[in-house]
């Protein structure tokens, strides 16, 4: 356990003026006002849990991409960009774009047509209650723990950056989130995610603009990095990955392509209900297909405000940042790079905007987690197993109550994480245990009608078990097991995660196929609207080219490929 004083004796990075505080206070006032305004519209279950299924493709798409644009991600990935260079952009490009397009074109129609409220809800329709219950319970627990981690991370950042009291940050942020989500349900969460999207862009975009002005453009920045760190490559995406030892991440291109792109990203973007719920709120199938495609264009641009500031930090900061485990008084860690760059270029007013963007990101992260928790708890645990035939109003009340209860559990989780700091890494790792195998289960269920109820459940269970086993072995005896599972002793933490995801998904698929071969499939009539071969997916045959989701998916894919070539 890390002693508390060691955790919190840190210097304040920035000092706020009155105008900065006014900007922060206005944000809190606005989100609360929006929450109270939206309360009157969240009357039925569909309103509260799925925002009435009436969001346009743009709103659903921005909320979809914003749900993954929390401050934990921003600070962490800017830090990773400082540490690993532009290779960190893989998590925004190959680790997101193909999966988002796949969700929009292939998977979204099934989620939407089946009229499910959630991913566990789809599993219940497709496989029955075993796989659904396993997925729902693990998702509910993980979501609420993640909300606590978000809360704690925000409080620490506010203390480090602004010198705010840790307990004050936790109480104010959680109460605000609790009030506006309990009032307006998914309506509130989505509205605030859209606001957060604009705040983050306008709060952070000045850093790369002014950074590039200072360094004299991209080539000037690269020259400065080479001057500051001779002999190290931080500005190429794919070329340093021909071997494990030729890049700072210790990863081979197979880990990025298969582990990240084909499994982990697919798992996260297509089966993590936190993001899928945003798309389920779309008003029709076409909007539901378009939303992730719209999101993919913005996702492709996010490295501009996350990765580029990390790289600029290498070029312009007059001191070197260090890993969190090695930080000494007077030093800064990798994850401080974004606030440091913000403080470098932003004076009063702009600083308040940047800090508000970080606060908004943390609060949207909490709101996303608790709204997804409320939906899965109410529809996938409470309704099927505890109270089956209650009126709709009862489930809405349950949703409001468990939003608040979920937040109180999150606060408890935040204080547990505060006492045991290493738990934060483990909670984040726990999420990874379920996502990769779940992708195997959902995808096989959608594409192969032969897969049976028991095969779905056992495949998912085996995938989760293999993921936990691989993770534990690599942590307990890294010298022995990292080279076995991650294919090289050079593989660092992120590389190990990729291979862990890959093997757990492969295990899930193998077990599912084997069990399917020896069990009896469900009749076709029961699977209509749930699997590819038995579902009439609406096509946009009469829509013009510019209104077809497939056209925009192809445009996004071409842009994605061009970016890979430019930064190869």
């Amino acid at each position, binding site marked *: 356990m890390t002693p508390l004083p060691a955790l919190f004796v840190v210097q304040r990075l920035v000092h706020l003026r009155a*105008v900065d505080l006014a900007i922060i206070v*206005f*944000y809190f006032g606005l989100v609360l006002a929006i929450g109270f305004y939206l309360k009157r519209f969240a009357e039925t279950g569909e309103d509260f849990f799925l925002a009435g299924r009436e*969001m*346009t493709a743009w709103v659903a798409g921005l909320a979809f991409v914003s749900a993954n644009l929390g401050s934990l991600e921003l600070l962490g990935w800017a830090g990773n960009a400082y540490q690993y260079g532009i290779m960190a952009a893989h998590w925004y490009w190959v680790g997101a774009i193909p999966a988002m397009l796949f969700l929009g074109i292939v998977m979204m129609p099934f989620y939407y047509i089946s009229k499910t409220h959630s991913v566990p809800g789809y599993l219940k329709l497709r496989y029955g209650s075993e796989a659904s219950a396993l997925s729902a319970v693990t998702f509910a627990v993980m979501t609420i723990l993640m909300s606590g981690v978000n809360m704690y991370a925000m409080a620490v950042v506010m203390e480090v950056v602004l010198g705010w009291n840790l307990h004050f940050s936790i109480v104010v942020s959680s109460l605000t989130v609790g009030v506006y989500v309990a009032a307006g349900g998914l309506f509130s969460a989505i509205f605030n995610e859209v*606001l957060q999207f604009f705040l983050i862009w306008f709060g952070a975009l000045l850093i790369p603009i*002014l950074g590039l002005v200072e360094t004299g453009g991209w080539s000037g920045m690269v020259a400065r990095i080479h001057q500051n760190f001779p002999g190290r490559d931080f500005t190429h995406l794919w070329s340093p990955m021909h071997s494990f030892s030729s890049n700072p991440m210790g990863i081979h291109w197979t880990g990025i392509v298969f582990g990240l792109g084909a499994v982990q990203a697919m798992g996260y973007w297509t089966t993590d209900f936190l993001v899928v719920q945003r798309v389920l709120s779309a008003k029709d199938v076409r909007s539901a297909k378009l939303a992730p495609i719209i999101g993919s264009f913005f996702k492709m641009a996010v490295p501009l405000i996350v990765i580029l500031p990390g790289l600029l930090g290498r070029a312009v900061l007059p001191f070197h940042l260090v890993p969190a485990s090695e930080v000494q008084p007077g030093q800064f860690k990798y994850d401080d790079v974004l606030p440091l760059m913000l403080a470098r*270029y932003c004076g009063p007013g702009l600083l308040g905007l940047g800090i508000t963007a970080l606060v908004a990101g943390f609060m949207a992260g909490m709101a996303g987690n608790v709204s997804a928790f409320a939906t899965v708890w109410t529809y996938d645990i409470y309704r099927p197993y505890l109270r089956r035939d209650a009126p709709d109003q009862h489930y809405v009340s349950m949703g409001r109550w468990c939003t608040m209860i979920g937040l109180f559990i999150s606060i408890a989780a935040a204080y547990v994480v505060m006492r045991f700091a290493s738990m934060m890494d483990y909670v984040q790792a726990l999420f990874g245990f379920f996502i990769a195998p779940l992708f195997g289960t959902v995808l096989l269920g959608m594409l192969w009608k032969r897969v049976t109820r028991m095969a779905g459940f056992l495949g998912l269970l085996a995938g989760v078990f293999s993921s936990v086993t691989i993770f534990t072995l690599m942590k307990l005896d890294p010298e022995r097991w990292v080279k076995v599972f991650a294919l090289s002793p050079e593989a660092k933490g992120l590389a190990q995660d990729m291979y862990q995801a890959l093997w757990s998904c492969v295990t899930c698929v193998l077990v599912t196929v084997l069990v399917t071969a020896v069990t009896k499939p469900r009749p076709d009539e029961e699977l209509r609207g749930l699997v590819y071969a038995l579902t009439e997916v609406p096509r946009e045959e009469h829509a013009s080219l510019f209104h077809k989701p497939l056209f925009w998916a192809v445009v996004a894919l071409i842009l994605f490929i061009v970016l890979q070539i430019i930064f190869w």
Partner: protein
Amino acid sequence: MSEKHHIIPVWFFVGVLLLVYGVMIFVSGLAAWNNPPPDVQLAELHAPVWWGALLIILGGTYCLLFRPGKA
């Protein structure tokens, strides 16, 4: 955005946020025009003034286009 509920579009709230922030940042940039903060790099570019102006234009446009009651 909403056909069932007639909710004020989220874009209007985005407009209000950008407009208010734009005014605050623009005014603070003007106030610091002759006396920019010494610890901020490139302060001579007066980023708060033109960034604030950009937010005012965008926020104002959103407020106008998506104001409540506009069909």
